[in-house]
């Protein structure tokens, strides 16, 4: 899984039926020290995350479909948590 910051939301009318009525968020990946890497990913929200929140993103198809309860939806990246804090050692 990866940690990132939600920095935007994608709105779409025409798309695969799987994504109908699902929130698609733009998540910018963080590096190990919490800085932004410049890389991003679009992920389906399952936890009610919003812009400005740090989130945990599952980036794997089979697990993503399990979370979404879909046998063959074209989904890979799913937001599965909201991060309060990361303690570095």
């Amino acid at each position, binding site marked *: 899984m990866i940690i990132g910051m939600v*920095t935007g939301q994608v709105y779409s009318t025409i798309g695969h039926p799987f994504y109908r009525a699902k929130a698609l968020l733009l998540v910018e990946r963080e590096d190990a020290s919490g800085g932004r890497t410049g890389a991003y990913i679009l992920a389906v929200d399952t936890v009610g995350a919003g812009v400005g929140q740090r989130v945990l993103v599952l980036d794997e198809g089979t697990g993503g479909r399990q979370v979404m309860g879909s046998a063959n939806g074209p989904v890979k990246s799913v937001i599965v948590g909201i991060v309060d804090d990361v303690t570095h050692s």
Partner: protein
Amino acid sequence: MLLGRVVGVVVPAVVYDGLAGVPMLLVQPLDRSGEPEGRAIVAADSTRMAGPGEVVYYEGGREAALSLDPWFVPVDHAIIGIVDDVVREPR
């Protein structure tokens, strides 16, 4: 998934079984700000509605083929939807 802009239409002469009639579009990947980044790819268009100039979101890997019908086809990138708008946080 990532954002991309459709920059061309690919017209295959011969395709593998199951891909006949599936639109193939040339997609320029975009960065987090919507600027072009990296090399263009060819993506199958599962919406069958995307066209040049439009911003789309696309998936790579096995999930790309899952967006198509039939889904057991040799495709590594597919357009999943057309973007109306991306609302970004103010910087």
